[in-house]
C-alpha cells in the first residue's frame, strides 16, 4: 500500500542512512575493492581481476571449511528447531510459571558471546571443568582439545545451549497467539495431541518458525567468537569454520585479496541459502 508521500520523512531517516553507509555499505565496497586487486602494503594496488575468486573457489582449504560450516549449521538447525518447539510446547501458557520460564529461557541469550566461549572452554576442560571431569570420571575418554569428535560435541552442545532459547521464545510467541477456540474445537472433534500439533499448532507457528530458521541459519553461518574462544578452530583444523578461516587468512596471513574474495563468496552463499529457506518455507502461503 502506498502511503502519502511526505518529503520530510527522508530527513528523519537520514542519520540512520549515514550510519548504515559507514557500517555496511562503505566496508562492503572496500571489500569489493580488495577482492579484485593485489596489494603489497604501502597503499600500492594492482589490478588482479578475478584471480582471487578463482583461487578461493579452487582451494581445497576453502572447500573443507565450507563443508565443516555446512555440517555445523545443519546440525544445530536439526537440533535447535525441533528442541525449541518441544520446549515451547511444554511451557505453561498461563499462571505464575510463565514469567519464570520466560526469564530462564532468556538468560543464555543475555550472555556475551566471548563469555559463552570462555565459559564452555572451562566447563569442558577434562582436568578441571565440571563437564569434562565428570565425563572422564564416569568412564568416557573425553578431551575436546585433542579429539575431533569431542571438540565437535562440545561445540554443538554450546551452540544448542546458547541459542535454543531463541527458538523457544519465538515458537512460544506463535503458540500463545492461537485462540482458545481452536483447542476447544479440536477437543470437541476428538483430535489427538499429535493431530492438534500437526493441524493447529504447527501451521500457526509456521511464520515464526520461518523467522527462527532464518535467524539461526544466518547467525550460525556467521558464527566466530564462540568457537574461536572454545577451540580456536582445533584440534588441527577440525573445527575451523568459514569465519575462523577467513580471519586467519585476512589477519593471520594478511592475504587481503583472497580474504576479500572469500568474504564476498561467503556473503553470496548466505544470501542464496536464506532465499532458498524462505521460499521453501513460505510455499503454499496465501
Amino acid at each position, binding site marked *: 500500500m502506498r502511503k*502519502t508521500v511526505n518529503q520530510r520523512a527522508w530527513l528523519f531517516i537520514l542519520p540512520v542512512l549515514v550510519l548504515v553507509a559507514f557500517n555496511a555499505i562503505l566496508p562492503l565496497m572496500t571489500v569489493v575493492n580488495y577482492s579484485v586487486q593485489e596489494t603489497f602494503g604501502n597503499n600500492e594496488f594492482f589490478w588482479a581481476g578475478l584471480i582471487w575468486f578463482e583461487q578461493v573457489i579452487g582451494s581445497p582449504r576453502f572447500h573443507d571449511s565450507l563443508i565443516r560450516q555446512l555440517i555445523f549449521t545443519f546440525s544445530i538447525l536439526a537440533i535447535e528447531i525441533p528442541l525449541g518447539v518441544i520446549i515451547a510446547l511444554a511451557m505453561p501458557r498461563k499462571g505464575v510459571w510463565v514469567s519464570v520460564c520466560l526469564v530462564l529461557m532468556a538468560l543464555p541469550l543475555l550472555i556475551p558471546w566471548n563469555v559463552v566461549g570462555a565459559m564452555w572452554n572451562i566447563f569442558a576442560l577434562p582436568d578441571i571443568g565440571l563437564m569434562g571431569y565428570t565425563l572422564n570420571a564416569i568412564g568416557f575418554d573425553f578431551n575436546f582439545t585433542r579429539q575431533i569428535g569431542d571438540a565437535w560435541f562440545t561445540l554443538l552442545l554450546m551452540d544448542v545451549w546458547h541459542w535454543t532459547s531463541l527458538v523457544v521464545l519465538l515458537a512460544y510467541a506463535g503458540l500463545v497467539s492461537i485462540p482458545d477456540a481452536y483447542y476447544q474445537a479440536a477437543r470437541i472433534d476428538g483430535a489427538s495431541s499429535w493431530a492438534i500439533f500437526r493441524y493447529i499448532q504447527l501451521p500457526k507457528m509456521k511464520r515464526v518458525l520461518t523467522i527462527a530458521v532464518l535467524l539461526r541459519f544466518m547467525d550460525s553461518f556467521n558464527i566466530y567468537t564462540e568457537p574461536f574462544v572454545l577451540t580456536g578452530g582445533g584440534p588441527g583444523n577440525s573445527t575451523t569454520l568459514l569465519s575462523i578461516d577467513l580471519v586467519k587468512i585476512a589477519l593471520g596471513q594478511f592475504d587481503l585479496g583472497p580474504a576479500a574474495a572469500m568474504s564476498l563468496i561467503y556473503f553470496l552463499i548466505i544470501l542464496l541459502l536464506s532465499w532458498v529457506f524462505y521460499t521453501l518455507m513460505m510455499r503454499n502461503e496465501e
Partner: protein
Amino acid sequence: MALELKSVAKQVDGEVHIHPTDLTLAPGSFNVLLGTTLSGKTTLMQLMAGLERPTSGQIWFNGRDVTGVSVQKRNVSMVYQQFINYPNLSVYANIASPLKLARIDKAEINRRVQEMAELMRLTPMLDRRPSELSGGQQQRTAMARALVKDADVVLLDEPLANLDFKLREELRDELPRLFADRNCIAVYATTEPMEALLFGGNTATLHEGRVTQFGPTMESYQQPKDLISAQVFSEPPMNSAKVTKQGGEFLLGSSIRWQADASTTGLADGSYMLGVRPHRVTIRPDGAQPVAIRGHVRIAELSGSESTVHFDLNGNDWVSLSTGVHDFDIGAEADFHMDVSRAMYFDDAGHLVGAAGGRAD
C-alpha cells in the same frame, strides 16, 4: 466546506479497489456508505481521510485540492469498529487528548470536554479508565474524542458492529442527535441497510469498489437506480424473478399474471427482472394490488411478532415477511400475496425501468 471526490480511483498491485468515483459531500451532511464487507467502504474512507493516496483523481475540500495533503494536516477524525482509546488515560484525558495536541488552553479544554461528556452521557465515568467501561461506553469515549476537536470530516467505520444488539440500538438512536448541530461532514460506513435508513441523511450504496447510487437516503431506498443498488439496500435481501411483459400484462412463470399499471404500462414487451421487497410478499392479501403466488416452503422463522418464510418460487429463493405468527412445515405448499403496486422492474442491463406506483418501498 464540501468534500469532493473527482474521478478518484484506487488500485493496489494492479487490483482495482475503487473504480473512478465522483462524490460530493455537502457541509453539515450525514452520509452513509452502505455495502458488504470488501465492497470498498473502508478504502473510500481512507481516501477521504488522506490515509491513502488515490491512484488517480483528486480530492477537493473547501474549494482546494487536498489530494496529496497528509492526514495530520486535514482536521479529520475517525472512529473504528474496535474501541480504540488510550488504555492508560482516564476517560477525561482521552476526550481531552486531541485538544491538548492542538494547544488549546486548559479552561477551554475543560469546558468542551464537560460539554461533550454530557452529550455522550459519560459525565459519571470521566475519572475511569477505558478498561473499566462497558463496550458501549468505550465506543462513546472514542466518539467523544472524534467529535470534541470539531473536525471538518468525521469518519465512522462500522462503529456499532462490535456492540451488543441493544447497545447498538441505543447508540444508533442517539447518533443523529450528536451530529445534528455540527457543521462537519459525517461519513458512516455500515453493512446494515437498517442503520442507513434510521440515520436518514444521504446514502451511497457500494458494490465491488463502485458507488452504484448516491442521494438522499429515502430516495436511494425507494427509487434504486438499478438492481444492484436495490439489492444492496434491502434487508432481508430483495426477492427477484424473471418476468415477461406481454400486452398490458406481466407474466411470471407460466401462471402468475397481473396487469401493468400507470408507471409500467408504457414499457415495451419483453423480459424484465422483477424486484419485490420481502415485506411486500405477505401471507394475507395486503396492499393495493396483491397477486396470489404459490411456493414450496424451505423454512419458516417465527420471531414472536413477525414470521419470515423462505420459499421457492419457480426456482427462485424468495422471502416473505408478515406480522403475526404463521408456521409452515418444510416442503409444504403455501400461498402468498405479493403487492405488485410496490414492485420494481429492471431491464436486461439492470437499470430500473418501472417502479410501480412510483415508490418502491
